[in-house]
């Protein structure tokens, strides 16, 4: 089943789908970046700044990769194979920097009482936000299902939702390790415009 025949609605469906996925992924990263910047502002001489800066850099990498991986101009049509490929690339591309945020935050939290007042609470929020992002990456079926609802609400007669959901289910098959924990970075995980 292809959406090509339904153009120009296909273009709107593609935009709505990618927009929703992008929104879902960027929302927790917003909290990661905001809280890490806030802690850097509030504790200018603290010893944890280097680790916090690395967390921030990893968060920025997530944002950059979301922009590259979900660039609508890079997607010709929203057929099932394409949706599945997009979701797999998103998971591969974001897993390493997300793991870096989680790992760095956990290392800082291990400092416990040595951290300035309030920092542990803010780090816990960073960890919760990064955990939310990791959960989205681990369950692409749910992520795509929510995006499909958005597409359906935009184009109620187009019936794109089941197609998107089927593609997401394919992307979430066990062979793709959908529910594994984030693993270390690999070069081939980096998003490439010509992929």
């Amino acid at each position, binding site marked *: 089943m292809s959406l090509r025949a339904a153009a120009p609605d296909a273009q709107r469906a593609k935009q709505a789908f990618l927009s929703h996925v992008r*929104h879902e992924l960027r929302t927790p990263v917003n*909290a990661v970046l*905001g*809280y890490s910047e806030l802690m850097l502002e509030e504790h200018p001489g603290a010893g944890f700044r280097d680790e916090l800066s690395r967390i921030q850099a990893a968060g920025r990498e997530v*944002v950059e990769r979301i922009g590259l991986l979900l660039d609508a101009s890079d997607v010709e049509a929203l057929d099932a194979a394409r949706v599945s490929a997009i979701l797999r690339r998103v998971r591969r591309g974001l897993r390493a920097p997300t793991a870096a945020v989680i790992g760095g935050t956990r290392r800082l939290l291990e400092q416990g009482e040595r951290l300035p007042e309030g920092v542990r609470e803010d780090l816990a*929020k960073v960890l919760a936000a990064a955990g939310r992002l990791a959960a989205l990456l681990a369950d692409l079926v749910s992520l795509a299902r929510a995006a499909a609802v958005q597409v359906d609400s935009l184009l109620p007669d187009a019936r794109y939702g089941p197609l998107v959901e089927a593609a997401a289910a394919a992307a979430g098959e066990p062979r793709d390790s959908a529910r594994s924990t984030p693993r270390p970075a690999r070069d081939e995980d980096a998003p490439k415009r010509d992929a």
Partner: protein
Amino acid sequence: MPRILLVEDNEMNRDMLSRRLERRGFTILIAVDGAQGVAMARAEAPELILLDMSLPVLDGWEAARQLKADPRTQGIPIIALTAHAMAGDREKALEAGCDDYDTKPIELPRLLEKIGALLPKPAS
């Protein structure tokens, strides 16, 4: 001290952005959905509104339309905030009546510049 109404449903984003703005000397009023945002703007008359667009109860676009249609609130500048960053989002926000638009994740220096440009200038 300028008062800014922040309309944002995400608790962490609300807490983080309000604290960062308070550090810059702003007084922050909080609303957690579009309907509450419209009601608070009418009651509190803030100097500026930061309006998330993906809001429950009443979305940001409709909230902006209502605020700009009401003589009590139409003069309050609104900056739309969204994590969508889609082509056409900015135009859609401006069409709804927003005065400017910014994307999440928030780049604070950029947002502060936009806030400064829209806040009423103190009488000399």
